[in-house]
């Protein structure tokens, strides 16, 4: 059993899931909406990058930046047109709206780009590998993933602790009405959180596609894995998600090595087990139910 190889690969995949889980958690933290459309929003942004890269023939970094800008606008669009008009929505209502956005985006993407699978490549190939310690093979792709995850984490830390917008987001999360009284434009905070989450999701999706293929359904199952890591981390804590992602990636990789046929259901088993044993996640404090 190539432990070193599985470990590195698992951690790299885990970092992707963790990054993507962050996209879910940022929205859930600020507005208590579980965004089922996160995967599809990221998928559409990746398709935009693909379009700019392959059809228009620009370089990767141009495509990357355009995709991120598009992702930000997409996030604001979904929040502004689909979630904000809903008056006093119930929990089921919010879930139905975000699933509706998911179906809409999936339909649009497969209508525009067709359902056939495409190759999306980034400058960091997983075929170019280094072996710093014997047995531990690190690909360029894995390095890119680790760097991206670390950069996003550091950025998020500074953002939430040291910027005005980050403080406003934390305040909104604690008590929406009190934040409003204090002069925070909570609607704007929500829109910002959606844009932010959409950008992080797009980065994660582009890293994930580089390893697999690009088709309109590719984020569906990755979304569940990302969600599993978010649940492991407790859905509320930002470092917890990344650690949850690492655990998820490692479990999936080792389990998948032993039983390849059952690899796809690992995420679901992890979700159900964690939710049964410890619904508050591994790192969150007490699970307090609001009455």
């Amino acid at each position: 059993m190539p432990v070193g190889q599985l470990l590195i690969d698992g951690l790299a995949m885990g970092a992707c899931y963790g990054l993507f889980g962050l996209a879910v958690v940022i929205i859930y933290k600020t507005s208590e909406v579980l965004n089922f459309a996160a995967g599809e929003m990221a998928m559409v942004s990746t398709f935009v990058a693909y379009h700019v890269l392959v059809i228009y023939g620009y370089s990767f970094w141009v495509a990357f930046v355009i995709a991120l800008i598009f992702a930000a606008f997409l996030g604001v669009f979904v929040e502004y047109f689909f979630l904000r008009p809903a008056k006093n929505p119930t929990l089921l209502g919010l879930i139905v709206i975000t699933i509706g956005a998911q179906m809409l985006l999936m339909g649009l993407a497969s209508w525009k780009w067709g359902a056939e699978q495409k190759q999306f490549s980034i400058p960091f190939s997983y075929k170019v590998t280094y072996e710093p310690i014997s047995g531990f093979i690190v690909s360029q792709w894995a390095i890119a993933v680790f760097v991206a995850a670390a950069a996003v984490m550091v950025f998020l830390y500074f953002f939430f602790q040291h910027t005005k917008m980050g403080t406003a987001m934390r305040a909104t999360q604690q008590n929406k009405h009190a934040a409003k009284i204090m002069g925070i434009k909570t609607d704007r905070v929500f829109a910002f959180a959606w844009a932010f989450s959409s950008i992080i999701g797009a980065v994660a999706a582009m890293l994930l596609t580089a390893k697999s293929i690009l088709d309109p359904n590719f984020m569906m199952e990755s979304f569940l894995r990302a969600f599993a890591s978010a649940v492991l981390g407790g859905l509320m804590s930002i470092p917890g998600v990344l650690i949850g992602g690492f655990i998820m990636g490692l479990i999936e990789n080792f389990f998948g090595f032993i039983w390849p046929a059952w690899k796809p259901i690992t995420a679901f088993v992890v979700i159900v087990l964690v939710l049964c044993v410890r619904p508050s996640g591994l790192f969150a404090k007490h699970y307090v139910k609001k009455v």
Partner: protein
Amino acid sequence: MDMKRSYYEDIELFKSGVILFWTIVFLLVLFTFPLYMSDYALYLLNLIMVYVIVSVGLNILVGSTGQISLGHAGFFAIGAYATVLLMTNLQIPFFIAIIAAAFIAAFFGFILGLPALRLEGPYLTIATLAFGLAIMHVIGHTEFFGGRQGLMAPPLDLGIPQLGWSFVLSSETSKYYLVLIITILMVLFAINILKTKAGRAFVAIRDSDIAAEVIGINLTMYKTLSFAVSAFYAGIGGGLFAFVLGFFDPFTFNLILSIIFIVMIVVGGLGSVMGSITGAALITYLMYDLFKNVNEAPYVGPLFVAFSERWMTITGMDNFNYIALGLVMIGIMLFEPLGMFGAWIRIKKYWKTWPF
């Protein structure tokens, strides 16, 4: 309006003679459909009725008990596979097989109901979603269940072939009558179960589970019971679905099917049996007929194809019904959160109190 003055008024099936009359007329019309409808229309009606069964059951869980399930395609799959496998491998007669399959589905519903005792809201949604996908993958990876190739439904024999008494239904018309009778029975059962002690307990749990527990409702029992009843309905629906389609593979029962079930009851109206029937009929018609064949529609069709050629792709044109489904989901939540049943109540109130 519509105030109940006594217990008997609350539990009676038909509130007035007028409703009874129109229900009977409607049922008689349903029984005459095969006389003048094409096989394709009957197939579509069969599909609609199968989905009516599932959505009525799902509404007991989501609308009446307030628990969210995105895994009903899993129960549906269990019903379909169990019915077919019991009939082909053990030569069990159809009626016993479908009821056994529904009980197997109900058992899985009970199992899924256990974690539901601790979970709520988004957590429950994700747990049920994971369950539904896990069932799909387990079936797809096991040779016993036909693997990825799927299963062929055996001939629909209502008799007991071992005793030499067989009664094979092969035409769409005969299947239509079978599905229709089972659907009517299941709908009546659902209307009645909501008027029993269990049904009132479900509604109390939906409104506030803490208050329900305080007044002495056993949450463990009624939450798992709700899951089991709902899964039972999905199991019966799945068993019939297997024969309506004749052939199915694990990917028929994907996440999108679970989402479609939820959309049916949300569009129809949460917590109302009539709402789930209309919702199921409307969404099935839209998804499996109107939007699926939108490129063959008169006037709009060629325009649509031309638009796809110019701006989109022709191969991805089939995905138009996902776009429509998404728009319906978002639109209904933004403009009419109570669904078609809510709109109906509003119209009724408007006419009764007109001109005020």
